[in-house]
């Protein structure tokens, strides 16, 4: 399998200027023989993975097995040691750092394990910051609507540090969905959530996938999410 190393502007994603291009018919995400490591030492290997639009997949494995590293490598935030990654036909590794960041901002929604909401900003501002960072117009109506979908309409003006963990998780999800990404990567989205919040977040992820057509890759060791996904890949660390 091979991927094009062409510049982003030639691919079927949004180009680096933010224009939406016609999506190709191929998979949203393709991974082949991916090896990720630190300091020259391989820590995790993913032989193959294909993910189409509106398709979800669980990346399971115990803590420390390298699931987060795989997501970071797929998103282009970490350089893989070996293997190929294709997102909408583009290998992020072939892009210059600034282009890679912009490509990620426009095409990938990332839900971090630590949420990383910015304290001092409101929930609404934390959603809008995705557009601000990517340098595209900030659609307040869409951000407000997303928060409403997450059941957070009343909390839009509340500062991040005043939100509960479950509320913050939903804000992080809304932020990831703001720009209508083709691929959503979620790292332990239900970790430390109670059953009720886990159910809510799981449902929202599933809805994001079905309603927006985004491909969804969720790294988790939370068994409560398994019933929502038809496919899963187990990851085992190499050390």
């Amino acid at each position, binding site marked *: 399998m091979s991927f094009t190393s062409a510049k982003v502007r030639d691919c079927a994603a949004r180009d680096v200027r933010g224009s939406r291009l016609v999506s190709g018919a191929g998979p949203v995400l393709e991974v082949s023989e991916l090896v990720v490591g630190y300091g020259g030492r391989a820590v995790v290997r993913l032989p193959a993975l294909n993910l189409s639009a509106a398709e979800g997949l669980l990346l399971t494995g115990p803590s420390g097995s390298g699931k*987060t*590293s795989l997501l*970071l*490598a797929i*998103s282009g*935030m*970490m*350089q893989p040691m070996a293997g190929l990654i294709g997102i909408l036909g583009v290998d992020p590794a072939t892009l210059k*750092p*600034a282009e890679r*960041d*912009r*490509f*990620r*901002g*426009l095409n990938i929604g*990332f839900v*971090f394990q*630590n949420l*990383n909401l*910015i*304290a*001092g*900003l409101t929930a609404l*501002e934390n959603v*809008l*910051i*995705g*557009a*601000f*960072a*990517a*340098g595209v117009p*900030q659609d307040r109506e869409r951000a407000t609507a997303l928060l409403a979908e997450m059941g957070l309409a009343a909390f839009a003006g509340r500062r991040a540090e005043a939100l509960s963990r479950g509320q913050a998780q939903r804000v992080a999800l809304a*932020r990831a969905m703001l720009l209508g990404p083709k691929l959503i990567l979620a790292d332990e989205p239900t970790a430390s959530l109670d059953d009720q919040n886990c159910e809510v977040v799981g449902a929202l992820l599933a809805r994001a996938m079905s309603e927006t057509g985004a491909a969804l890759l969720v790294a988790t060791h939370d068994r409560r999410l398994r019933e929502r996904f038809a496919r899963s890949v187990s990851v085992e660390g190499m050390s």
Partner: protein
Amino acid sequence: MSLVRLVWAFIRRRPGNFLFHVLTLSLGASVVLGLVLLERAVETRFSRDLAGVDLVIGAKGSPMQVILSALLEVDTPTGNIPLSAAEHFAQHPLVKFAVPVSLGDNVRGVRIVGTRPAYGELYGAHLAQGAWWTRPMEAVLGADAARRLGLRPGDSFIGEHGLTAGGERHAKTPYHVVGVLAATASVIDELVLTDISSVWEVHSHKNDPDEPENPGPPQVTALLVKYRSAMGAIILPPEVRAMPDLQPAVPAVEVARLVVMLGVGARALEWIGIVLLLLSAGGFLVALISAVSERRQELALLRAMGAHPGLLLRLVTLEGVVLGLAGGVLGVVLSRILLWGIATAGRESGMRLAPPPLGTLELLAVGLAMALGLLAALPPALRARFMDPGRELA
């Protein structure tokens, strides 16, 4: 969402740190700025008090003391000179303007100066109330002196011997206030003026029966002279020096000496201010580096969401500039408070300062503080620009 909003969120999260760094920067800025302003205020005051006088003729002694006592009114005179000698030089062809001054008494610490109404011309003084004196024992008060003594035209007061309060009272020869001058922001504001013959009259009366009669010819403390031409500067001082008991004192020279003497201390303080400023810049740098370290996750998050590295650069430098702006503005405020304190203390000791109005110097100081903030922000900003988001978020 904007850069400013994001910077504000960062600042608001740790307001104590922000205030500490602003205060540190402002202290350095205020000391440097305060001293420069003080120097200007002193120069302005000297220039007003010297009133274009080219030469002061006084009794033998320190020329600096002659200037300080007869012109700036902050020291005791070196002695008196004969009126005849003063009149001789007043009529000299190279002299355009001359006015005698005679010191020796005060009223509640305010100096009484025996002179001619022409003394007011030196300072461009004009009457706010009443009229100039027309006979001995009539007095015209400077604006501050009138306020301080609570006197107005029609009132009377008793002079005391000496230049400071608490001397022997000349109860037999009361003064009558006939006029009050408008403020001029110069030394005349703090004086009580009277005719020169009043001083002779007061001192011709024996307060003590054992005191000998005043037998000598009339004297004055000094003669303030303006030259008709530059030749005066060459001819007159040697002529004065050749006279027994007379001392020429050139205000420009003596004040320049005084400024140099004061300047040593001022320069030492300026250096302290500059060191403070550099220290605060260093502290600023450490603070910004630590601030960037603290929020490297947020900065990495922005990169993860597609932010161009240049955006992070702008974000961190803007924070530095905002700190610099706040520090600079507070520095200007503190420098004004410092100057006000010095001016108040100076007024108590008879040295009135006129702080200059807010102007380009303050704008320059704020601009420099902002530039310092920018400079201090550059290393951490570059660090943020080249950060690896994957490593920070892993």
